[in-house]
C-alpha cells in the first residue's frame, strides 16, 4: 500500500524534522507486514507465558492468525464455529472462571454481531475478555463493504469499562496484544489484513493508555491511529518542504484516551488533524473533538471515511478513492493550518 520509497534514504528526517529538538524514536521502514501477524505472534508469546490464556476460533483462524496459537497450543484453542455473539459470551464465561480468553474474527462481526454481548456480558460484567477485530477498514480490499469494518471505534468506545487499542503497525500490534493480555478488563484490539509499512522498532515505546509522539512539530499535529500513523509521518515529512513543521501523535489507545497528549498538542500547535481508517463520525476524530471542546477548542480536520460504505477493489485504489492517503493528510494539514491563522 503506502509508498515507503520516500523514506529509504532519510530515515532520520522521518522521526525528527530539522526544526524540532529533543530525541525522537528512530524508525526503519524496510518492510511491509499486516498488523494481524503481530496479533497472531503475540498470542503465542502470551500462551507461552501464561497457562490460562486460551483462544476461541470463529472459523477464520487463518485470516486473523489465531492459527499460530491453535497450532502451538491445540489444547487451549476452542473452535466456536460461526457464532460471533455466543463466542463472545463463552469467552465471558471462560474469563469469569479465571482464564484470559481471546476471541478474534473480522472487526465487522467482532464489534457489530455481538454488540449487546460486549455491552452486558463483557463491559457491564467487567469480564477479562480480549476481542480481536481483524480486517479493519477499507484496506481489506476485494471482499467489499460487508467485510470492511469502519465502526468499531464508535461502538467500542461508547461502552463503559472497555479498553480499545488500534496499533499502528505489525510490531506495535504485537506489543499491544501482549499488553492487553496482561491488563485486567475487557479489551478490544483492532488490526488489519493487508500489508502496511512496518516501521516501529523494539525500542519504540508502547504504553497502554498513553499516546506516543512520533514526530515533533510546532505548526500543527496529526493525531492518528492504525496504519494512518505511517501516512501521517509521510505527510509531515513531505510538508517540511512547504515550511510546515508537523507533529505526529500515535494514538494507539483510543479508550481510555490520553487527554493530556491531545491538550498539549492543541496548546502547542493550535491545529489538529485526525486520521483514521474508520468513519469520521464518532471515531478517533470524535474522541479528540470531545476532549478539545471540553478543554481547549481548536480547529480540527478529519481524515477518514466520509459516512459511506466501502466497496471492492485493490487496497491502494480504495485508500485513494476514500481519501485515506498521506496526500489527503497533507491537504488536511494545509487546511487546518490556514484555519488556525484566521
Amino acid at each position, binding site marked *: 500500500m503506502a509508498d515507503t520509497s520516500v523514506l529509504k534514504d532519510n530515515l532520520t528526517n522521518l522521526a525528527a524534522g530539522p526544526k524540532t529538538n529533543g530525541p525522537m524514536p528512530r524508525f526503519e521502514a524496510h518492510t511491509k507486514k499486516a498488523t494481524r501477524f503481530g496479533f497472531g505472534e503475540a498470542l503465542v508469546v502470551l500462551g507461552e507465558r501464561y497457562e*490460562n490464556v486460551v483462544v476461541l476460533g470463529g472459523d477464520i483462524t487463518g485470516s486473523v492468525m489465531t492459527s499460530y496459537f491453535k497450532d502451538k497450543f491445540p489444547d487451549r484453542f476452542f473452535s466456536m464455529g460461526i457464532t460471533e455473539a455466543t463466542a463472545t459470551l463463552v469467552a465471558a*464465561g471462560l474469563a469469569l*472462571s479465571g482464564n484470559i480468553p481471546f476471541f478474534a474474527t473480522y472487526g465487522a462481526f467482532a464489534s457489530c454481531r455481538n454488540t449487546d454481548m460486549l455491552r452486558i456480558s463483557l463491559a457491564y460484567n467487567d469480564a477479562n475478555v480480549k476481542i480481536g477485530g481483524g480486517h479493519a477498514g477499507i484496506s481489506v480490499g476485494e471482499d467489499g463493504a460487508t467485510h470492511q469494518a469502519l465502526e468499531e471505534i464508535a461502538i467500542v468506545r461508547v461502552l463503559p469499562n472497555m479498553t480499545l487499542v488500534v496499533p499502528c503497525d505489525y510490531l506495535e500490534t504485537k506489543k499491544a496484544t501482549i499488553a492487553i493480555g496482561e491488563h485486567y478488563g475487557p479489551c478490544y484490539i483492532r488490526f488489519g489484513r493487508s500489508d502496511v509499512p512496518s516501521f516501529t522498532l523494539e525500542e519504540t515505546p508502547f504504553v497502554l493508555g498513553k499516546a506516543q509522539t512520533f514526530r515533533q512539530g510546532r505548526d500543527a499535529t496529526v493525531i492518528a491511529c492504525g496504519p494512518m500513523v505511517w501516512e501521517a509521518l509521510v505527510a509531515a515529512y513531505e510538508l517540511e518542504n512547504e515550511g510546515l513543521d508537523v507533529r505526529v501523535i500515535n494514538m494507539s489507545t483510543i479508550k481510555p484516551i490520553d487527554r493530556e497528549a491531545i491538550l498539549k498538542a492543541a496548546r502547542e500547535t493550535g491545529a489538529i488533524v485526525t486520521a483514521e481508517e474508520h468513519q469520521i463520525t464518532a471515531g478517533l476524530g470524535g474522541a479528540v473533538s470531545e476532549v478539545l471542546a471540553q478543554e481547549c477548542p481548536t480547529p480540527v480536520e478529519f481524515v477518514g471515511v466520509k459516512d459511506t460504505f466501502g466497496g471492492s477493489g485493490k487496497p491502494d485504489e480504495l485508500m485513494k478513492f476514500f481519501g485515506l492517503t498521506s496526500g489527503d493528510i497533507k491537504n488536511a494539514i494545509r487546511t487546518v493550518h490556514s484555519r488556525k491563522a484566521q
Partner: protein
Amino acid sequence: MARLTHTIYPLTTGFHGATRPTPNPELIAKYGYDSFVPFENSPDNSDEKLQAIAKEIRRDIVRALVEAKSGHSGGPLGSADIFAALYFGGVMRYDPKNPWWPDRDRFILSAGHMCPVLYSTLANAGFFPKPELLTLRKFNSRLQGHPGRDMGLPGIESSTGSLGQGLGIAVGMALADKRVDKNSRRVFALTGDGELAEGEIWEAALIAAHWELDNFTMVVDRNFCQIDGRTEDVLKLNPVGDKFRAFNFHVIECNGNNISELRAAFKEARSIKGRPTCIVAKTFMGHGISFMQDDYRWHGKPPTPEQAEQALVELV
C-alpha cells in the same frame, strides 16, 4: 508455566456510593427475618422439606416484590421448585459462608428478569441476610432489577438481563471446567421458554454439544407464557424437547413444579456422559397462587399489597 491471576469475585464497583438502602424494620420483624436460620443443602433433605423451602422462597418473592412495587412475579413464583431442588437437594455444591469458594458449582440465571427467585433462594441458603430482600430494585441495592455483578452480591456469578446471553456464559464456564481446568465443577443455567427464541441459545447449544460438556445442565422453565401471551401464540416453540435432541443434548422432560421429578431429572443429568443435558421443566407461571397461576399477565408486575396478603395466605 505461570498463571496470570486476577481477583474476579466479588466485583464491588457498584457505583451508587457506599450507602445501601435500609430495609423496612417493621417488615423485618413481621416476617421474622431477624431470627431466620438458613436452610441446609443436602441430598438427604426429604421432598417434603424441599417443598416447604420452595414455599418459603415463594413467600419471600411475594414480600420482596410488594415492597419493590415493580418487578417480575410470574416466572420466579413458577420456578421456585426448580431452585429448591437445585440449591437444597444436594444438586449444587456451594458454601454460603464462603460464597466465592473456587470449587463451587456455578449457576447462571440466563432469564435475568427472574432474579427475585434467585435472590430469595440465595437468602434462604444463607448467602446474605434475608432483610436485604426488602431492598429489591431500590437505589443502590445489591439486589438490582436484573442481576448486576458489579454489586458483588454473594451468589451472583454474572450480570444478566439481556435474554439469551446467560446460557453462552454458562457454556463458557463449563468449557473452562471440563476442557481447560479439567476439574469436577458442574455448571447449571436456567432459561425462560420465551427466551429460547433468541438465536444465541441455539449457538450456545451447538457449542455445548460440540465440546461434549456433560458437566453442563440447563433447565428450561417451560411455562408456556411470555410477556405478550402464550408462547405458542407469540412464537411457536414446540416441540422444545425435539429441538434440543436435534442439537445433541440429552433431554429430560419433567414436571417442574414437582420436587421429586426435578430431583430425579438432576440425578439423571449427572449420570449422562459425553453430552450436555437439557431439562425441560413444565411449570405454571405464578404457581401456587390461585389468581396468578398460568396467567401470562403476571409476567412482569408485582402484587398489590392486598394481593400480596392473599398470596401469603395461600402460601402457608
